[in-house]
């Protein structure tokens, strides 16, 4: 092995350095990543499988799971439609303010989720800008499903658009132009040409968006009001249980969230393999 390494002068690192670097990386990841993840599952099952399942069957727990799935589903749907529209606009057309739009799409990445939640309270809360008007019309946004969905949508806005924009920019608009000269209308061009060309990137973006939407805490915490069984999403419900010292129930819900994330990660990895193949097959120009 030593002989092999010495072939390249750039890789003539002493063995102790190689071993140290690997050990440091492993130790760090175990401490920061693996150990907590394992702990979640161990703690969740501490009182046995029956207690675990019972915790998940609590009506409040089921309500939290249902709410989380609905909020995530709706936020992802909205951001997918928006992401496609934005990517299409940015990649296929030239317009004034394009670079400003590109920068703004990234904004939710850089601002704290708590602030994302807070702006909705400032806009739609009882004392907010639109508060009195909404009150007159009997519309409530803060402390409701609508508010939670809005906050989640804002925080997860960039995921789909960010995946699509570079790919669609690289592909250009020649194929769309070709479709037009061949007599295809806008929708046919979109569904037969544009969408198939970005389908893997789109699925990848949707998965990332879903994972992030289900786990969102900060923004949702501000707008939800933490009403058990009504406006408590899974992350919020975990916090409530934890504050009530119901540790194994808290961990049971947390393990479910972690499991969602792991499944998403597995599907994402699978897609990446597929995505790489397709990309190399499609990159022939």
């Amino acid at each position, binding site marked *: 092995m030593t002989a092999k390494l010495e072939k390249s002068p750039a890789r003539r690192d002493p063995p102790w350095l190689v071993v140290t670097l690997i050990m440091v990386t492993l130790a760090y990841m175990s401490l920061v990543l693996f150990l907590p993840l394992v702990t979640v599952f161990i703690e969740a099952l501490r009182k046995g499988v029956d207690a675990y399942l019972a915790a998940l069957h609590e009506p409040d727990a089921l309500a939290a799971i249902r709410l989380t799935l609905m909020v995530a589903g709706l936020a992802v749907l909205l951001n997918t439609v928006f992401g496609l529209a934005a990517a299409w606009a940015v990649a296929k057309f030239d317009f004034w303010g394009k670079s400003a739009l590109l920068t703004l799409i990234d904004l939710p990445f850089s601002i704290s989720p708590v602030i994302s939640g807070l702006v909705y309270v400032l806009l739609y809360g009882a004392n907010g800008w639109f508060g009195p008007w909404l009150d007159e019309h009997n519309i409530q946004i803060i402390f409701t499903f609508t508010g939670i969905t809005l906050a989640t949508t804002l925080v997860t806005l960039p995921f789909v658009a960010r995946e699509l924009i570079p790919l669609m920019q690289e592909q250009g608009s020649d194929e769309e132009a070709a479709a037009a000269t061949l007599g295809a209308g806008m929708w046919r061009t979109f569904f037969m*040409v544009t969408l198939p060309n970005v389908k893997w990137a789109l699925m990848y973006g949707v998965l990332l968006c879903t994972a992030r939407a289900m786990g969102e805490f900060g923004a949702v915490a501000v707008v939800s009001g933490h009403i058990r069984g009504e406006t408590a999403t899974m992350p919020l419900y975990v916090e409530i249980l934890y504050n009530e010292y119901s540790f194994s129930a808290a961990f049971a819900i947390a393990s479910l969230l972690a499991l969602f994330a792991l499944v998403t990660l597995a599907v994402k990895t699978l897609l990446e393999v597929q995505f790489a193949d397709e990309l190399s097959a499609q990159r022939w120009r």
Partner: protein
Amino acid sequence: MSLEISDVAKTFGRFPALNGVSLFAEDGEFLALLGPSGSGKTTLLRVIAGLDVPDSGAVRFHGEDLLAKPVRQRRIGFVFQHYALFRHMTAAQNIAFGMRSRVKAERPSGAEIKKRVAELLDLVQLDGLGGRYPAQLSGGQRQRVALARALAIEPKILLLDEPFGALDAKVRRELRRWLRDLHERTGLTTIFVTHDQEEALDLADRVAVLKDGALEQVGTPEELYHEPASAFVFDFLGDTVTFPCSVKGGVAVIAGAGVPIIGPHAHEGDAIAYARPDQLDIAAAEALGLPVVVRNVILAGPDARLDCVLESGEALDVRLPHDVAAKVSPRDHLKVLPRAVRVWAQQR
């Protein structure tokens, strides 16, 4: 007149791409748009197809206003420079796309489409390759798929943007002959864009030379080659050598020797003389003419070539018959004089 383009202008931002171009094409004509990059030739093609909208001017086809129709209703076949094949569709699916895009009342049945695709694959000599994806085809094959796809909509006009631009030299020559042959068989009005003068002169019935968004000259390849309207056209259509000269009494005086002038020469006085490298004669060092030193003698190719250096230090390429060139050796001092020149006031 079949296709009539009148006074078309188009500006991108502050950059004028087309400056009032008027041009026509007869039914069944094979027309080339020739020009350097930035001359507006591709923009003109895209305006005809409807992919770019001109700021002013008109485009008519048999008297009908083409500009009033959206791209997809024009029925103009367009072959893109990089083909723009649909990458997730097979060659056959690519070709069928146009037929499948028609409104239901006009759409051929599945069986008819299949039959037509087979015919087109046969026409472009790709039988058996219909199931391949673009990534699995060579550059020349992709080009022919793109052509078959454009022909599938039974276009009234066929437009080709740099059809051979992305191919290597040998495939390019083969495809060129094949495209000419295809044009003979289909009889379709065809306009293609190229920056390669040889390609334009070889293929087209008529060539339109563009420069800076304006039409410089339109004519048959013979007309362009033998009666270039400007120094630009002369320079663009082949290898060029230039000499400073002065025009006196209908002849160009170059280094003290009078040389006959071909074509019009408006004024007397200082001008630039243009010739082709094969229109140059060599003489002994004592004769009249431009003194040169021979750097290299290349006795290969259809013409022999002398690589010479002028007194000014500039290189001068002289093409000669092999038997004449064989008598010259490197480091010889010679005189060079064109047999005849064209004269224009300003270079380019």
